[in-house]
């Protein structure tokens, strides 16, 4: 049943976000620490356990893959609700700070990615 897939996904989501909330409180900060990441890890581990104990029927799987396919449309809606005017109204300093932070981070990617390649060999 499709709903089983949606339920599995929603349960992973809630468990992860709850764990992230607890982690944030444990560290004494007002933020969810990696809740979504923990939820993703849960789902990845479950979906990699393809044996008799955990095997989703194709119909159940569509309950998860539908939401995965809705990802791009959701991201487009997210772009359309951004505070773009707010970003541009911060003046040159804010724009420059944001722009240079992105530039520096982009430049760092090949440097760090090299470490993952070394371990691939």
């Amino acid at each position, binding site marked *: 049943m499709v709903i089983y897939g949606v339920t599995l996904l929603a349960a992973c989501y809630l468990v992860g976000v709850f764990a992230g909330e607890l982690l944030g409180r444990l560290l004494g900060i007002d933020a969810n620490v990696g809740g979504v990441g923990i939820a993703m890890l849960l789902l990845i581990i479950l979906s990699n356990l393809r044996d008799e104990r955990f095997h989703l029927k194709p119909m159940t799987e569509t309950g998860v893959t539908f939401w995965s396919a809705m*990802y791009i449309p959701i991201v487009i809606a997210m772009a359309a609700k951004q505070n773009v005017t707010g970003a541009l109204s911060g003046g040159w300093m804010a724009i420059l700070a944001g722009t240079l932070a992105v530039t520096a981070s982009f430049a760092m*990617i090949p440097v760090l*990615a090299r470490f993952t390649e070394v*371990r691939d060999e």
Partner: protein
Amino acid sequence: MSEAFSSTLTANSLIAAFVFVGLVLALSNWISNKFTNGRIHGSAIAISLGLVFAYVAGVFTGGTRGLADIALLSGVGLLGGAMFRDFAIVATAYGADLNTLKRAGWVGASSVIIGVVLSFIVGAVIAVAFGYTDPIAVTTIGAGASTYIVGPVTGTALGAGSDVIALSVAAGLTKSILVMIGTPLVARRIGLNNPSSALVYGGLMGTTSGVAAGLAATDPKLVPYGAMTATFYTGVGCLLAPSVLYLLIEAIL
């Protein structure tokens, strides 16, 4: 007649948003095929169009939520809000490769810390260059250059003024929008074409919305890897900026 039309849309805002986003995507795919021979992804065009709409809507409504501030399109706010976004991000993890995570996990994790510190330093240097000398203001603006959530969390914790907090939000918003638009443009040059580099990318960039949209426009198969590390970034930023990084700035200035 027009009143009936608008009340239908406002009473069914989420459904209206499905239609709206579908039409934007259809238009974008058409533009992509017709004018760029498919070289620029339809999704990249759709995300940029979304940002343009958000800007125009912001100018006309004076609000902060882009198109979602227009009553007829308020469903865009729900569909594009954090709940659906995060739910869909988790769904993309289904079927992702566990071995990649195991192999590149440590580099991904360290990229989060490096990413927070790097963006923070850049933001702090710019703040100093623009004449800020108060350690609290410099720290808050540096934190804002990490993400637009870390900025206000740090500023509030340290007792920064609301003008400085607003600046830090603007810096973070600029970053997130630039990551959305810039990622597909630089992806090839920075080697963003495999799960390992996507893990590093998510950790360095950290803005969940920026990374989500940037990877969607580059290669949707990389989304789970980048999003995974990015979701830890804001938490790590909120942890480091008001504590270690603030003490560092205070010692320097």
